[in-house]
Structures are given as C-alpha cells and as structure tokens.
C-alpha cells in the first residue's frame, strides 16, 4: 500500500493552525478528531468549517493580479 494512504483521514488541528502551527489530530471512532497539543476536539465538518474561518483573513485569496495589475497595486 502507498505509504501516503494513512494521511487520507488525517487533518491538522484548526486551533493550532490558526497559530501557524501544523499539528495532526488523532482520529477516533465516529469521525471525531482530537488534538494532542491543545484541547481542541471536533467532527470533520466542524474542522472544515474552522478552516474556512481561518481563510477569511485572505481577502484577496481568489484575486488574480496580472503583471500589469501588480504594477498598480
């Protein structure tokens, strides 16, 4: 089996990630995940929602700036 398969179900802790730290959470039965480094725990859907919240700070995440547009930035 491809070594990478084990990462299929793993996710980083959204609380630690919001502090710019990558910490892999431990999956438990029933789709629950907990963080070994902080006290966060939650379901996958909740985690993905928190990722979305983290991304809100990137106001220009979906903006393409061509070379000419960057000259004017």
């Amino acid at each position, binding site marked *: 089996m491809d070594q990478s398969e084990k990462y299929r179900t793993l996710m980083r802790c959204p609380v630690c990630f919001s502090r710019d730290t990558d910490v892999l959470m431990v999956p438990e039965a029933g789709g629950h995940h907990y963080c070994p480094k902080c006290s966060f725990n939650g379901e996958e859907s909740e985690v*993905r929602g928190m*990722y979305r919240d983290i991304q809100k700070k990137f106001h*220009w995440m979906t*903006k393409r*700036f061509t070379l000419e547009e960057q000259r004017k930035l």
Partner: protein
Amino acid sequence: MHLNVLHRTPSDAVYSIFKRQQDLAHSFNLKTTVFVSYSDLFNEEVVKDAFQYEREFGDEIGLSIHALNGPGVSKIARTQNCIWLLNASAKREVLDIILRKFREICGRPPVSVGSYHFDSSALRILKELEPGVETVIGGCFEEGVRVFHGCNHSWYLFNEGMPWNPWYPSQSHSLRPAADEKDSSGIVAVPHLMRDMTLSYEGRNDFWASHPPNVIRGMGNDASFCPYDLNLVDQFRMQEEWNDGYSYYNTFVSASWLTWNHNSEYPPEVAWELYTKQLRYLGELKKSGEVHDSTLAEYGRWHRAYRPVGQPEVYWAKEMLYGSHKHYFWFIDPSRRILIDATQGGAVGDLRPYAGRVPVATGPDTANREIASYPFLIQSQHRSGNAHHCQDGARTTLLLSNGKAELDSSFLRSKIAAVTNTAGEASVTLTPAKFQFANGLKGELTTRHIFLPQGQIKTERTISNLSDPQAELTLTEYFKGAPGRTEYPEDMHGIRLGIDGNPKRQMEFDYSGEAFESVAATMVYAEVPQTRTRIELATVAGEAKSGAVKAGHLFSPYFTLFLTQSLKGNGKIITWTNLKNIEP
C-alpha cells in the same frame, strides 16, 4: 525571467508520480533538472530514466543530497538527513561516498548539487572533492524561527538572512553574498524555491512559495482555484524593472507533495491540478518569450557570465493575499541586506550587516551547531519592533516633536512611490505621510533612503505643507538594535556605545539601562563585536543638535542610538547610516 524547474527522484512516494511530473513539464515544453539521490543511484530504472530524459529533452541529471541513506552513508549519518548538520569529517566522508557513486554511475561528476542548505564547510568540502560542481541549491530564504514553531519545533533549518535570488556564496558564510571573486566560494547558489517577500518576513516562508502544495499547506487556495500561485510568478517578473531586466524563478515540488500527505486536507488531485496550472502558466510565458527555461547547470553558467559578483539587487514587495495594500522594499549588496517597511514610515524591519563578514559553519563540531542564519542587528518580527504592549524592540524610526507634542513616524502609514537601482546606487522613496500633532500642527513627511556602496545609507526626511510655515520641529533619527540569530536574546556584553559631540562619550553596554546625551553631536554609534560591525548615525556639523546613546536592561535588551536635528518651517534633514567592519 530565468526559470529552473527542479524535480527529484522520490524516496518516500511512488515513483510513478515523479514520472508524471516529468511528463507534465515536458508537455509544456519545459526542461527540468532531475536530482537523483544517493540511494536511487543503485536503482537501475531511475538511472535509465534519468539518462533518457537527458537525451530526449535536454534535462540535467543533478545530485540530490537530501536523503543521507544507502550503503556506507546510513551508518555515518544515522538518520540525519541534513548534510550541514554533520561534523566536518562526516560531511567529507558522506560527500566522498556519494560523489564517487555518482561518477561511477554517470561517468562524470555532477554539475548541480541540491540540498536545502549547504553551510560554508559543506560547500568547501564539496568543491574540494569535486571541482566540477558549479551550482548548488544553497538555502531556504527566511526559513528559521517561524517554520521551527510551525513544524512543532521539529524542523531544524535556520537560514534567515540570506539572498532571495541566486547568489555567489562567500567562503566564510555561505548565505552571505561574496564581496568579490577572492571572497567567493567559486560556486553559484540558487535558493530552494522563491518565497513571498512580504509574507515570509511576516510569517512562515514555507507556506508562501513557488510551490503550489506549499500554498495548500498555508490554506491559501480555494480547492483547485489558487490565483496566488500565478500572482507570485508575476511579482518576481515585475522585479526586472529595477534590476536591469533580470529576474529569476524556480519551482521544486517533490512527489510526496502530490499524493496524500500530512500538509493538506485535500485529495491529491487538488495539488496536481495546481501544479499543472503553475507549470502551464510558466510554459505559456516561455512561449511568449517572457520566460527562459534552462537546466540548473545552464542557469549557473549564464549567471557567472552575466551577473557580476557584488551587484546590488532590490525587490519591491506588494502584499497580495490579505489585501493589506502593504509595500516592503528589500535591498541587498555585499555590505548588508535590509528591509524597509513602508507601512511603518520607512522603518528598517530587518538588517543583516554583511559588512562584518561573520564566519559561520554548522555541525556538532561548531559553536553555531544548527543555527546557520546570518546574524541580524534589527529583526522587528523576532524582537518586538514597534511598541504595542511593553517597550518597543529592534527597529528604526523618526521621532518628530513640536514643543511638547510628539509623533513617531512608525505610525505614519505610507506606500512605496518609487524605486531606483542603477550604477551601484539604489533608492526607495515613500509616498508622503500626512501627520498631525496633538497641538493641531499638520504637515507631510516624505522619506527617501538611498543605498550607496560600502555600507552607507543616506536618509532624507522632507517636511512639507506645514500648517504653520514658521513652526519649529525637532527630528530625531532613532535606531534600536540587538545582535541576534533567533527570537531569543543573546549576550550583549562587549558592545560599546559612543557619541561624537560635546562632550565626546563612550560607554560599555552593561544592561544598566543608562543613557548619555551630548550637544552638537555629529555622530552616535555602536560597536557590536557579535556582528563584527560598527553602526553609525551621522550628520554634518552644521546640522547637528544633539545625540544620545542608551544601554538597555535585561527586560529590554537593546542598544539605542538617537541623533537629533532641528528644522524651522518646511525643509529636509539628512542622516547617514553607516555600517563598518570591525573584525578582530
């Protein structure tokens, strides 16, 4: 723009992904440099394919020093994969074994050798063992403290304070650009990836790089939509305007980033799609003549032929992910690397005083151990910068006063209005910043820094549009520094502070918190043996008003220099910031 597409044969992912990467690059008519690791030199399929790529597409076979495992090497490296973190004798043994194997299999020495980093001793040993090596991947721009934190304090690569573009490593510190041929290690180095010149100063350099899966790691993508990847390409292209038409880019994505991995919550298809978009765009730019792709060896030869040793370079960084409208300006030459923060009134955010030529090698047999970063005098991210909680930290600013009213120019937000870089002289001019004192006096401040050879900076502060044209202003250039390499304080004993004024004074930095002031001061300075440099603020005699120096204490471990001039009505003051070598 010059482009290197770099690939490496995978040690920890399926080989078929690497082959798809090669096919993808070739489908866009881009050539690659294939870095083969030592253990893969024993793999017939890998070697056969590498030669096939070379024959068919003009790709280069380079040597990767990323994975130190395989016959004879594993027992020396003992799971340590970083050549720069071995002691000098182990570096020599390991490199000797690997280089011999490369010659045996390829029938010639490698021209390009890749690692995340080569410290000065690894580079010297490499060149001694194999004079045919011309080009290396030599370091990761601004990788250090933040990545160490970000990887759970487990990623021991400290490369802060290095060039963002290809450079000639000096002999005594491989991350310092050589001053001249004599100082040079005889090798051309390129950075491992191009980094966002705003966000790798403000945060993790490994999120914001010319590596689409890195951006996924930073969550800068919306699934397979990520215009940032192309924006970064174009920002590097934009630098041609201020660097004699020169710009450089590389991308180096390992196969392990294109399958399930611990740095992404997306399926591998997303990373593949974004990598495809990046290479497709680079291929289109090649087609339209905007990009010139080459192997790393070819690039290194071009660099040697056309980029003189010691040439100053600049970078005008415009933030493009948060939408902050922030601008930063970077300058590098053999005397220093310096970052100007336009949002803080043209303050210095980062200063690496290369003039001191601090020698650094890493490994267990050195006092530096793992810290390969070039030491700083100012690093406002690691050392507080502008005051927001307790006392301020390492930074520069202009303090303005009118009677009892005071202003700190670090709170005056501006952008960059103009950049120049010709004939050994570079400059950055900020947009005018409007100010108003508590007493109602209003005006505008325009800051211009001019970077001259031999470590000189001329700073012009122009006051205009004063609401009272007869107003008297006192202007103090302020430099607060501390030698360091990481975020933690280092021993500052041995620093000497001085004033050339009336009276002349000198004091030893002793953590006493003591300060001295003199009138008619033409110069204030700090001699910092930790960076082997003397830093001076100077003005001409007629303009001098007063100068002061201050030692910090253990709760604020910085030295501070103050140089004050006065102005009546609108006008301009000039201050020189000089960096001088005081090698013992």
